[in-house]
């Protein structure tokens, strides 16, 4: 499966291994391995089918096709595709889960008012 095309899209290929803190202001597609933390507050993160992310993730949109281990905070939505394997707590406004996706963790749906109130 090819990466989604976008004007501002950074890609981490399947042979790339990164350890540390990742942050930015463009969409990110990870098909390799990332360990640490990922912060893309106003952008989207896509974990590709070969991606293995072991990190806490904060992003606007998070789409998972591969493996993600860590807590997830999405200000807009989370999409778990059928091949997703997610271990960690998910906090988001909206979530969609395809049949076959594996989730081990908590799902906490927070509305905009919840976040504003700091709940």
């Amino acid at each position, binding site marked *: 499966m090819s990466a989604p095309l976008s004007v501002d899209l950074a890609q981490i290929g399947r042979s790339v291994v990164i350890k540390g803190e990742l942050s930015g202001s463009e969409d990110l597609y990870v098909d390799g391995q990332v360990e640490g933390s990922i912060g893309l507050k106003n952008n989207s993160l896509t974990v590709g089918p070969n991606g*293995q992310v072991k990190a806490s993730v904060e992003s606007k949109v998070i789409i998972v096709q591969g*493996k993600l281990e860590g807590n997830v905070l999405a200000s807009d939505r989370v999409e*778990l595709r*059928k*091949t997703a*394997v997610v*271990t960690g707590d998910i906090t988001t406004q909206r*979530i*969609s*889960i*395809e*049949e*076959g*996706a*594996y*989730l*081990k*963790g*908590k*799902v*906490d*749906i927070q509305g905009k008012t919840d976040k504003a109130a700091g709940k």
Partner: protein
Amino acid sequence: MASTAQNFMKLFRGSSRGTEAAPPVPQKLTRRSSGLGELARLWDSETPLCVLDLGSTSAANIRFFTERGHKIYSEDLLVASTEPGLVTKDEEGKVVLDSRQFLADNLQYPAAHFDVVLCWNLADYLDESLVRPVMGRLWSVLKPGGVLLAFFHTKDAGPDSPCFRFHIVGKDMLETQRIVLKRETRRGPTGAIHTAVSDGFRLQRVFNNRHIETLFRDFASIKFFLARDNVREVLVVR
């Protein structure tokens, strides 16, 4: 002659290569659940509940609880039990699953954390060596007064009863869907591909009422509901 025999066998094997049909989509059936209906009064609680769903990850269940403001935790213990690293031998050399390791990897929650645990048909399909340790852990993570819902086959169900996943579609309505394990869905939490299971989980045993009472002997109360589909629904309160 050979082709006649081959055609005859195709009746049993299905179509030949080249004209292969798409894999069958697991059939979904809807059934009423008295046990779930009994819990319905809880869902209207103003106080957010903590619910633990031990079945296959279900978007319907997550939606059902989050729409009502409750917190849901999802953990598929059957898939977790297929982790190859759990296989060990007991003192008699018999192959068992390492329950200590299993509980170190799974069900890691604070004591008295959950209001409701949806166990579904876990005990019927879980390996023998894990059943009691898991129920012991579930007792400890339930709040006093918390409720556990479990389903058990009766002996009339037969040894080949398929394992189902359960989707909540109403306050007392469940959609059941046969679990067909595909290669890509057999990845456990570590990402390992499991090959020990062919097309699903096998019924490990049939509990009678006394076995069920013994299994939940540490709980404060137990209530049985006999369903038409050879399933007993059980509600236990810690």
